[in-house]
């Protein structure tokens, strides 16, 4: 059964699109047929992050309105055969994202994909609510910073009350915390909220910690999701997060001083 995953945060600029691109790519790399959908109508950016901006012909709104077929709008990723990108429209009409239309398109996608990754716009308006409404799982993208944590808490509340699963008294959306732009150095100096702090405050299970990394900007500059960069600490952290999402147990990296892992390497442990 296909699973709908929403990347959401409330606050903007925390790394939702970067994470959606990385996680969708990571799922595809593990052999899952995956589509990543941009729900940010009017502010299309997933195409740029995925490096397919010049291949967009039809979009999500065209398909919802019946102006194009699904297979005309889906863009096949050049790096991985399991991965498809579903760009959104640059229209300024935010209400173009009609809930019944979205449901119809998602149901059609469920027939041919294992994972449907929804990249939510910021805020708690129509677009963000539509993006999370049909979710089975939610990945709450959070920065270790007060306004981001507060907005994440608000979004967790909305998932628990306004999602389809909540409205139909179904099993609740399973929520995961993805802590991005984490700087161990600053945490150690007491300048930044720690993983433990954020986990304790939001009290949801931790999917991964993505370290602040130069490679993330390089990835967006070049339009290659960061998981394809095997040298990148952020890329490796996303690969781990995907493995955990698929049920594997993996130790959190980049949350302990590097020295420890050096000793572990000496002892012959991973």
């Amino acid at each position, binding site marked *: 059964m296909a699973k709908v995953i929403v990347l959401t945060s409330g606050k903007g600029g925390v790394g939702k699109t970067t994470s959606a691109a990385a996680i969708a790519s990571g799922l595809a790399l593990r052999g899952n047929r995956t589509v990543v959908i941009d729900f940010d109508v009017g502010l299309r950016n997933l195409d740029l992050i995925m490096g397919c901006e010049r291949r967009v012909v039809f979009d999500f709104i065209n398909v919802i309105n019946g102006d194009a077929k699904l297979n005309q709008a889906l863009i096949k990723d050049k790096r991985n055969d399991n991965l498809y990108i579903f760009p959104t429209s640059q229209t300024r009409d935010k209400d173009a994202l009609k809930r019944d239309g979205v449901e119809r398109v998602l149901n059609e996608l469920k027939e041919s994909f294992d994972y449907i990754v929804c990249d939510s716009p910021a805020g708690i308006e129509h677009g963000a609510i539509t993006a999370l409404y049909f979710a089975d799982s939610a990945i709450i993208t959070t920065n270790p910073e*007060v306004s981001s944590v*507060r907005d994440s808490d*608000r979004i967790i*509340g909305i998932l628990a009350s306004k999602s389809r699963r909540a409205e139909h008294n179904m099993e609740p959306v399973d929520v995961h915390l993805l802590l991005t732009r984490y700087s161990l150095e600053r945490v150690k100096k*007491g300048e930044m909220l720690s993983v433990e702090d954020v986990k304790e*405050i939001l009290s949801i299970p931790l999917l991964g910690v993505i370290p602040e990394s130069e490679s993330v900007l390089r990835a967006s500059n070049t339009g290659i999701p960061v998981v394809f960069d095997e040298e990148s600490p952020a890329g490796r952290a996303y690969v781990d997060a995907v493995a955990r999402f698929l049920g594997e147990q993996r130790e959190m990296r980049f949350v302990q001083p590097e020295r420890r892992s050096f000793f572990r390497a000496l002892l012959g442990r991973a």
Partner: protein
Amino acid sequence: MRLLDLLFPERRNSAVIARDRLKIVLAHERASRDAPDFLPALQKDLLDVVGRYVEIRGDMLRVNVGKSGDTSLLEINVEIDGAKTKPVKNGATAAAAKAAPVTRLDRGTPAPWVKPS
């Protein structure tokens, strides 16, 4: 500067300040998010009733919904310490008698603000 930081670590550690501020603000926001919609109206009515007997300001009466084990609790706190009492008028009780009959819940019936599971 370093020595000062060592002597007063809390001056430096802004992450602790962030954590404590978040805990407080989120505790408030979560409570009001889960609160039933009728709380403000109930608070106003209670203020009217209590106000017939003692002089009371809005901030002296607090209404909350909480949970204790399996039981949802409607908690009403009225602060009347030092408040001036008013002479009881007959009108007050007469008005109460004319009011709509009180609906009582049988034991086992969930209170109206409890979400059906």
